[in-house]
């Protein structure tokens, strides 16, 4: 039993704050839940399923359900795959709705890394019990250098250049200029990117995403509930999820788990990459986008550099408009977890509610993809394909 056409996204909310000094983490979750339910035209008592990931404090759903007063929940899921969790949640919510376990599913993400740093709270340490920890942590892996090694290897094998990677940031900045809430709104050039300070070779400062507070939420419902609501409904057509890791030492950094999650989502949706009018691609770093586009089949492996060049990802200019909200590279990367905002902009595009300057015409089929964890070691990859009612 697949999920195609068996559930709809009817409510979304992106928290406008980018620094949450005056808000607690549970408070952000609740504000987001309220916003997403209001967008759907539903109340908290309609919610019978709740989904959250590792960003939710305490025991996740247990604590958050109590805090928010969600009194009718009979289905919970706290699948944690880092920043891709929320796209996995969309898949799991679609499965639960299709199976008849629930009718109204709420997914929330919130984070306050900016506020936590200002308040001097310690960064969350990776669990020492993780089996890889003793053999990796002594060498100083961090988020940037672990993605940088993927870029370095991709350049070595395929001749990908820093200028090609820079085009991904350039495209995101072209979109972010129209988003009043975007953290970075200045349009940048390829030269700006490659001349920005080197953080971890070959990634420059402008190859990296922003760090922001805030979050987002999604409300998903059964077809029957969707029909009773006034909101433009967005159909879930297909989804896939997959882990990818270091394979016991048979390391290959040139591809991501998207090479498995993507085909599964496309098959379930009954579409191919050429059918996708808009793509939200997790952009923790420029290299994340490049490898993901190849793995999802938008171009051949190794040709991502050529594919992203010359504005091909800019809405109204190129063949594959991507991250029209400005993405994690320019707009928002709440809690260092970008999967949620990827779904939100894909929903806006299908509703026709993206900013008019970046709205894709006749956007009937869109894709959102998340990469959680580290592209340079182990990750959770998740893909979802969404469509209009007629798709």
């Amino acid at each position, binding site marked *: 039993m697949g999920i195609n056409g068996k559930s709809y996204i009817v409510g979304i909310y992106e928290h406008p704050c980018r620094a949450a000094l005056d808000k607690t983490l549970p408070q952000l979750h609740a504000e987001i839940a309220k916003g997403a339910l209001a967008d759907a035209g539903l109340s908290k008592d309609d919610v019978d399923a709740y989904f959250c990931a590792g960003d939710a404090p305490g025991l996740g759903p247990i604590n958050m359900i109590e805090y928010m007063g969600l009194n009718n929940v009979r289905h919970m899921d706290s699948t944690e795959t880092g920043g891709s969790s929320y796209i996995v949640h969309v898949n799991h919510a679609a499965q639960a709705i299709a199976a008849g376990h629930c009718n109204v599913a709420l997914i929330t993400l919130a984070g306050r890394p900016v506020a936590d740093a200002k308040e001097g709270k310690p*960064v969350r340490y990776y669990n*020492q019990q993780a*089996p*890889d*920890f*003793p*053999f*990796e*942590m*002594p*060498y*100083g*892996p*961090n*988020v*940037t*250098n*672990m993605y*940088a*090694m*993927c870029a*370095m*290897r991709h350049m*070595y094998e395929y001749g990908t250049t820093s200028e090609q990677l820079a085009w991904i940031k350039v495209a995101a900045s072209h979109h972010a200029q129209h988003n009043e809430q975007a953290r970075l709104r200045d349009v940048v050039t390829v030269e700006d990117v490659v001349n920005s*300070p*080197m*953080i*971890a*070779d*070959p*990634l420059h400062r402008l190859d990296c995403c922003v760090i922001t507070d805030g979050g987002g939420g999604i409300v998903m419902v059964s077809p029957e509930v969707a029909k009773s609501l006034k909101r433009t409904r967005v159909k879930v057509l297909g989804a896939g999820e997959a882990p990818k890791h*270091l394979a*016991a*030492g*048979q*390391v290959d*950094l040139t591809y991501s788990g998207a090479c498995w999650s993507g085909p599964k989502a496309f098959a379930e949706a009954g579409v191919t990459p050429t059918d996708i009018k808009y793509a939200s691609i997790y952009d923790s770093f420029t290299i994340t986008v490049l490898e993901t586009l190849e793995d999802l089949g938008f171009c051949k492996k190794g040709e991502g550099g050529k594919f992203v060049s010359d504005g091909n990802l800019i809405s109204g200019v190129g063949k594959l408009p991507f991250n029209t909200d400005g993405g994690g590279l320019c707009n928002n990367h709440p809690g260092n977890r970008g999967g949620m905002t990827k779904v939100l902009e894909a929903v806006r595009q299908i509703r026709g509610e993206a900013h008019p300057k970046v709205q894709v015409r006749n956007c009937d089929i869109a894709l959102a993809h998340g990469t959680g964890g580290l592209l340079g*070691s182990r990750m959770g990859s998740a893909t979802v394909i969404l469509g209009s009612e007629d798709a």
Partner: protein
Amino acid sequence: MSADQKSKINLVVNSEGKPYWEGAAKGQLLIRTCNACGKAHHYPRTICPHCFSEDTAFVAASGNGAIYSYSVTRQAKPPYVIAYVTLDEGVTMLTNIVDCEIDRIRIGQKVRVKFSEAGDGYALPVFTSA
């Protein structure tokens, strides 16, 4: 500590990894190998991740390898080189490249293991130009 700084080495030595660290302390790089399927793996595990056999053991590696990929963390003081090195035995491990001119490091470069002091009598396998 900022994310750009390399953490002070603080080895986590548990029962599964203890022989590995004891080997390193004696100047030996050990690789876990499976007697059932004959394949090596890294990081070391009791049950083989290739075939799930429990018949695994540490064997001494040659200590020779080549850089699969690397990155220089420029914002750290001093900058350091993180790398994946593919050992001649066929497994790839996360490590540091040390005692090299950092701007001359290249993918494919031949490297050899050396051991840096890690406190409490332990040592950390790192690599330098062969």
